[in-house]
């Protein structure tokens, strides 16, 4: 495997996002978003002011699950179509690099772009929050940032699969939007519906298992475990987490979610473009 080729492709992708200020705009967005959530999050109780990091993490988790997946899905959604339309895909295919090197280079470049904007955005806002509320739960906040980066990488991986599966941009966009809706909203609605239909008889274990099939719910539970404050969580993540569902297991599931679509992308790419 040629590391130089992977790094060259990754560098190009990262450089594109830095030059176009994509990384900076997203980072500023995350910073402002976090500060606003933290400051105005207490408005319902009648006062405004920065809350402690735990409460901020809980609020952010409920909203980040919408923003990061759509960012990642749109970031990677056009990646193959762009190369195909420019004619450069053919150049990559007939160059002495493997399909893996090509996909990994692209994936690494976009992952770093997304991770950098997440780290910068939440990092800067985290520093501001620490100066206002103290250093308690700093570790939890750092873990929240890592989880958020992982969530982005998972959806980036899914976006690669969508990008290779469909040729037309309109289809890619439609499936991207549907995937986002499915993972962030429809899946949990389905679970709630299942609870109602079965009148809660499906059991907590099966329910928990079904939850961890959705990477967004895994992200919620990971943050829930890391700050250990179920009271501040809303939605399905506030259900009781079974004891076997450890951080390691959830990380394992997340890594599978991050890897499987990428492996499927590789197989599909070979079938589609090297037939």
């Amino acid at each position, binding site marked *: 495997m*040629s590391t*130089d*080729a992977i*790094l*060259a*492709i990754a560098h*190009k992708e990262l450089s*594109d996002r830095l*030059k*176009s200020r994509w990384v900076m705009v997203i980072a500023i967005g995350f910073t402002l978003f976090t500060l606003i959530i933290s400051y105005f999050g207490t408005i319902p109780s009648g006062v405004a002011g920065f809350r402690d990091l735990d409460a901020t993490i809980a609020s952010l988790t409920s909203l980040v699950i919408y923003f990061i997946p759509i960012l990642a899905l749109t970031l990677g959604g056009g990646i193959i179509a762009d190369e195909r339309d*420019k*004619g*450069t895909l*053919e*150049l*990559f*295919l*007939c*160059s*002495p*690099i*493997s399909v893996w090197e090509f996909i990994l280079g692209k994936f690494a470049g976009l992952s770093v772009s997304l991770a950098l904007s997440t780290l910068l955005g939440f990092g800067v806002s985290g520093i501001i929050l620490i100066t206002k509320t103290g250093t308690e739960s700093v570790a939890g906040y750092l873990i929240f940032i890592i989880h958020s980066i992982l969530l982005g990488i998972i959806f980036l991986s899914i976006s690669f699969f969508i990008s290779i599966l469909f040729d037309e941009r309109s289809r890619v966009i439609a499936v991207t939007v549907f995937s986002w809706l499915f993972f962030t909203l429809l899946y949990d609605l389905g679970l709630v519906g299942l609870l109602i239909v079965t009148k809660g008889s499906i059991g907590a274990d099966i329910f928990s298992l079904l939850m961890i099939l959705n990477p967004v719910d895994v992200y919620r539970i990971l943050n829930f475990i890391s700050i250990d404050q179920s009271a501040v969580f809303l939605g399905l993540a506030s259900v009781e987490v079974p004891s076997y569902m450890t951080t390691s297991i959830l990380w394992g599931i997340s890594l599978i979610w991050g890897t499987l679509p990428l492996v499927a992308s590789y197989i599909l790419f070979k079938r589609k*473009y*090297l*037939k």
Partner: protein
Amino acid sequence: MLKLNNISKSFGSIKALDSVSLEVREGEVLGLVGPNGSGKSTLLKVMLGITKPSSGDVLINGKVLQEKGWKHFRKQIGYMPERVSFYDNLTGRETLNLFAKIKSVNGKYEIIKRILSEDIQSRKVGGYSKGMRQRLNLAQALLNDPELLILDEPTSGLDPMGIKEFYDILDEVKSRKNLTVILSSHILAEIEDKVDRVAVIKNGENKAVGSLEELYTGLKLPLKISIAISEANTMLEELLQEEGAEDIRYSKGYLVASVPRQSKLKLLSAVLQKQNSFADLSIREPNLEEVFFGVH
């Protein structure tokens, strides 16, 4: 150097290539001609390893190329696709650096500066003209100092000056090393004097292959005679008919006809005896276009 042995390729029920056998000799310029949809692009993709043949073998220096061998073989290939716009936000130099790393090229190949000046290399590709983009396309193909250069419709969209510049550069590259070139084009007149041999592809089949002379002879294509005359001359018409000429007609002050190759000398001798009845005379070999239609 490169040999295709009975290559067939089907996409579902469509047969794109049908038992194509072709040998590309070291140092030659092989023209690949054929109408749109004839299978030229599929054949090029088979040569590049992008398309896997349904049956048949690709041989390099006499050895069948297996899947793992492609990576190594591609290091020796430069490919210039017909349609590539590159990245508008990168400079020419950044683009070349990207592809140099992908091709694991360390040293700078001197000819690149001749193809794309330092000044043009420092500009963003988004501001390039069509001609500059084609130069960049050729430059990236030559980055790895290839043994085999595959050019797919390389002058498509270029103006006459751009076409001349392109072939001047190609001549220069050819003069520096014993480069083997596969030149796919549908502009037959343009590549006629650039190629050593031609392969005519139609309906996925290799209809004919050889030098132009071999093809003229093999296809028994007639020569073209043009006699400059001031007015209609029935005597010359009858003479041409007697010597077996066909398609006799008047065109813009010339009496033109197709002459069977074997009658050339006899006919010339007969016509020259009547030299007082015409101002000038020329006889020429068929061109690539006539070869192309002769095959069809």
